[in-house]
Every structure is written in C-alpha cells, then in structure tokens.
C-alpha cells in the first residue's frame, strides 16, 4: 500500500481540463519523480495534495486519511511538507529564526507557539535548529537575513525548514530550478543522503532529467493532465509514449 494514493483526480479551470483521471501511488520510503512537459498539470497535482486546490472529483489519501477539504496547515500537521518552486521562506527573519519556527511548531506535535517561554532559553530547540543548518551546510550563515541570500541558499533553507518538521512525505516542486550545475549536484547529494538516513518519502517534480535519473526510484510521466506512464527509471528513458509526449524535444 502506498503512503499517498491518488485516484481518479479531475480538475478543470473553466474549459481547461488540467487533470484528467489521474492515478498515482507513491510507495513509502521511495523517491517518486513526476515529470512531464510544461503545462502537463504537475504543479496542479501537487497543489491538490496540499490543500491549495480541491479536485473536482477523485480521492487523495495520505496514510489512509483523506486530504480533501482540510486546510493547508492541517494537511501539514499530518506530515506532508512542501518545498515550493519559488522559495517560500520568512525573508525578514534570520536563517536561524527561519529554522526555529518549524522546530517550535513541530515540538510535541502540538503546533502551538508559546508566549510564556523565551526563544533563547529553549536549548533543545536551538540545538535541533542548529543541527538542521549543519545538515544543509548553512550553519555559517545562521545570522544572515534570509532575503539577502542567493536563490540556491534560499532553497536549501526552505528544505531545512521542511526537514526540521520530520515530514512523512516531502513534496518538492522543481528543487533545482535555476541552480548552477554544482548547486544542483549538491542538492541531489543532499536529497539522496536524507533519503538514505531518514527514509523520508519524497515526490519530486523536476524538469532536469539529470536530477530525475539520479534520484528517482519510480517515475510518473504526466502529459496533458493524465499519467501516461508510471514505471521504473530504466524503463522510462526509451519509452515511446514518453518520447512522443516530449515531441522528441528532450532526452
């Protein structure tokens, strides 16, 4: 049984059918890539997982619980974290404070921010946040204001914030978009290391085939709102349907 089970999901915007009968099954502990040409419906699908959009029909089950109709913060509380295409971080706060917030939120699974404690007295939370920053190799930037960082750093920070929550499922929307090759490789290493160490299930939307084939244990190809192929990476590369979907434009 998959940790995330998507069945017969349909979503239209006006006359445009963005998703048509999408079925997807993400196995626990794997990295599952969702690829497809621009406008195939990848981000729409992800938005349906996190409560940003509600599908017209169909079901989205996470760990046996339906994610439909509950608010984004409640979905997050069940253990789904998301890294956005453009990093969503607290730009006015320092790097350390950015990571402290999810650490505080996640503490005891309570998702409450206490007004009586003091941030600097919470040694265990501080240590956890520091460890997160060490993991993504950003500890030397802990006092920097987040808005002053490079895009790659912002993305790494966002990843640290999501990982600080110990998610059961991590959704990554183009985690390497706009990155230089070296940064991309770092991100690949980081993600595979996390997966090895913590066995977090990941769903990755990605255009960069290098990233996809370095990471993914399973790949779903989305085209015009439907999953045309779902298979192991080695079977995807030469698949005629995939070639057709990309109009021979990609690898």
């Amino acid at each position, binding site marked *: 049984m998959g940790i995330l089970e998507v069945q017969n999901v349909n979503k239209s915007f006006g006359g445009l059918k963005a998703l048509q009968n999408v079925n997807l099954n993400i196995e626990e502990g794997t990295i599952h890539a969702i690829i497809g040409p621009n406008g195939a419906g990848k981000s729409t699908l992800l938005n349906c997982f996190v409560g940003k959009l509600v599908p017209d029909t169909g079901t989205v089950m996470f760990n046996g619980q339906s994610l439909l109709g509950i608010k984004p*913060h409640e979905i997050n509380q069940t253990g789904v974290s998301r890294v956005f295409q453009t990093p969503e971080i*607290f730009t006015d706060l320092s790097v350390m*404070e950015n990571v402290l*917030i999810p650490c505080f939120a996640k503490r005891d699974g309570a*998702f409450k921010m206490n*007004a009586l404690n003091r941030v600097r007295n919470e040694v265990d939370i501080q240590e956890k946040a520091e460890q997160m920053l060490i993991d993504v190799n950003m500890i030397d930037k802990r006092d920097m204001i987040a808005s002053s960082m490079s895009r790659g750093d912002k993305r790494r920070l966002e990843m640290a914030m999501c990982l600080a929550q110990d998610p059961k499922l991590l959704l990554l929307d183009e985690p390497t978009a706009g990155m230089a090759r070296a940064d991309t490789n770092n991100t690949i290493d980081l993600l595979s290391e996390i997966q090895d160490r913590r066995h977090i299930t990941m769903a990755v939307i990605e255009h960069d085939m290098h990233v996809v084939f370095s990471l993914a244990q399973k790949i779903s190809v989305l085209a015009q709102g439907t999953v045309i192929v779902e298979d192991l990476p080695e079977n995807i590369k030469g698949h005629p349907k995939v070639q057709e979907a990309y109009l021979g434009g990609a690898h």
Partner: protein
Amino acid sequence: MNTFSKADKNTLLFVIIITMLAPFILNPFPEGSAMAQFNAGYPDLMQRFAIFGILAVGFNILFGLTGYLSFGHAAFLGVGSYSAVWMFKLLSMNIIPALILSVIIAGIFALVIGFISLRRSGIYFSILTLAFAQMSFSLAYSVLTPITNGETGLQITLNDPRILDGGTGAGNLPVTGLFGLEMRNTFTLDLGAWAFQFNVGYYICAIFLILAFYLSMRIFRSPFGLMLRAIKTNQTRLNYTGLNSRPYTLAAFVISGMYAGLAGGLMAAMDPLAGAERMQWTASGEIVLMTILGGAGTLLGPVLGAGFIKYFENIFSKINDNVLHTWFSILPDGLENAIVWVLHFFVGKGWHLTLGMLFMLVVIFLPGGLMEGADRIRARFGRNKGKGEDTPNATNPAE
C-alpha cells in the same frame, strides 16, 4: 537561566531609569528662565507621556510584529476610559478596579472587532478597523448617550452611588486614588532655581509603563513573538508549517487592544472624565504616527515616538507670537517682525506643520524611525560592537 540578552537588559534598565528620573530629565531649565517653557516636567504632561507610551507599546505588538495596521485603536482607548469612569461612578474612586474593568472591556471589544476585521489583511483590514472605530465614536456621540453622556462626556458627579466609598463628603467631588493615595498629590522639590515635581499619578503611570514594556519585551522574545514576525513576512509558509496564523494574529490584536484599554483607563484615572472625541479617527492616526515616528517593530521606538509627539503637542503649541517677539527683541524691529512672521507658521497653532515636516523627514531619511537614527549615530561613533546583524550582510554570497 538567562532571561534576556545583555542588550535587552540594558534597554529595560534604560526605560526604568528614564521613567523614574523623568521629573529631573524633563526639567532641565531653571524656573523663570527664558527656556523654562521648554520644560516638560509637569505632572499633567508627564502622565500623558507615560500613558501614550503604553498605548504605543501595545500598538507596536500588533503593527510592529504582525504588520497589521489597525486604524481604529483609539476606539479601545475610549472604551477603556468610559469603563474606568463608570467604575468610579458606581464602585469606588480606587483606580485598581477601574483599570481592571478598562482592560477587560477593551479586550472584549478587541476580540469582536479583531475577529471580524482579521478576515481581511492589508488595506482592507485597516479600513475595517477604521470603520469600527468611527462607528464607536458616532455611537458614543449619539445613540449611546445614556452610557457615554454624549457630547458633554462622561463625568463623575456627587450623586453617583459609589457603593464602596459610600457617600461623598462636604459637597466636593471625590478624587481618584490608589487605596487613599490621591493621584493628584504632588511633592515639589525646590533645588536652587529649579522646582522638580513628583506626582503620584505620574509614578503610577510610569510603573504601568515599565510593566507594559517588560511584557512587550517578553512577547517580542517568545516563540509567539517569533511567530508574529513570521506572519508579517510570509503567511503561506506558516500555513505549510502547520500553523494557523489567524488565532495568533487575533491574540496580538486583543493584547494590543488591552494595552489601549489600560491607557484609556489610566487617562480616566488621572482625570476622571471621558469624551467621545478620544475615539475619533485622528486619535487613531496619532497612535500610528507615534509608532512609525519612533520605529515600528523596535522595542523602544514607540515610547520615544509617543514622547516626541506629546512634547510637540504640548510645548510647541504654547509658543505664540508674543513669546517669539520676546525671543527676538534684540534684533531690529523689521527683522524681528519678519522672523516672527515666518516662525509663526511653525509654532503655536502651527505645531502640526512642524510635526508633519519632521514626520516626512523621518519617513524619507529614516524609514526605521527615530530608532534607526539612534542606531546610525551609535554606529558612527564606533560603539557598535558587532551585534552580528550588519557584518554578515556585507558578505552577501549572491553571485
């Protein structure tokens, strides 16, 4: 455990010293000297400094941290004043029950107004709060006359029941006090040419200001405060961190409403009458000005801003043409008249013009308010011992 950082402790100490020594600090010029009118060390004004300081500190918890700009905070001030005066009328001239009721009633008002207004953000939130405040003002002025005494304002009278105090003596209106210690009591210390006034009411206000400041400091440094700052920056990320921002924003709104209620209650405690004009939108605007002038989001800024504006309002407005003439009397007549004619627009009734220009200068050149100015001065004189805020920014690795 170390509660606050060293810088925070110093700030708190600074506030305590300034407020406790205010009668000296605000009275630098000897009585009878030409500069004596710049002295602000008289009880009435010092009380106002402290009260508006509390108001601005509370407003800053909402605006400075969450970025929600409420344009209706004067409503809570007014509600606090009315509640306090009613307590004086019905129960006792002791200020404690009056202040407690002020805070509670203002809190309830804030809960209701906040619950509705916080459904929107940005300018819509501001407009909603403004609408509520104006509505409260109009109601107090007209329909609710039985409660607010309309245009005349709510006052204490000899016929009030005052259950705890019993009958009033000798046909004099009773005065507010703290278990018999009258608010208006003033001890004057004559020291050479100086006369320093120590007023009970001021010190009560000052102690409340220190408490209010300490509380706001605790909020700033708590996870809750961190979360409020996060609300200002990125609500989407908060939602995807499993946190629902609405209850926290509402809590901040209610807390800042209660601060305003306390300020309103103290106002009534110093002078037991309450009028509807206290709720007018100009009063709300003044609170916003204070906070921005001093520096929104900083701990000390709002207190400074409140002091600045109240000083202008009370001191600059007193300088009339006659005063100007005496200042420039040594100059030739023509020149004297010319200078007085020019300055005439900036002092006396024209003090708004001076304040307006000052405000413009601050917003344009010091977007972080007076606190930013203070920081810059400190940096210039090399006393900035590398707080770890400026230095890392210099090494921006964005290629």
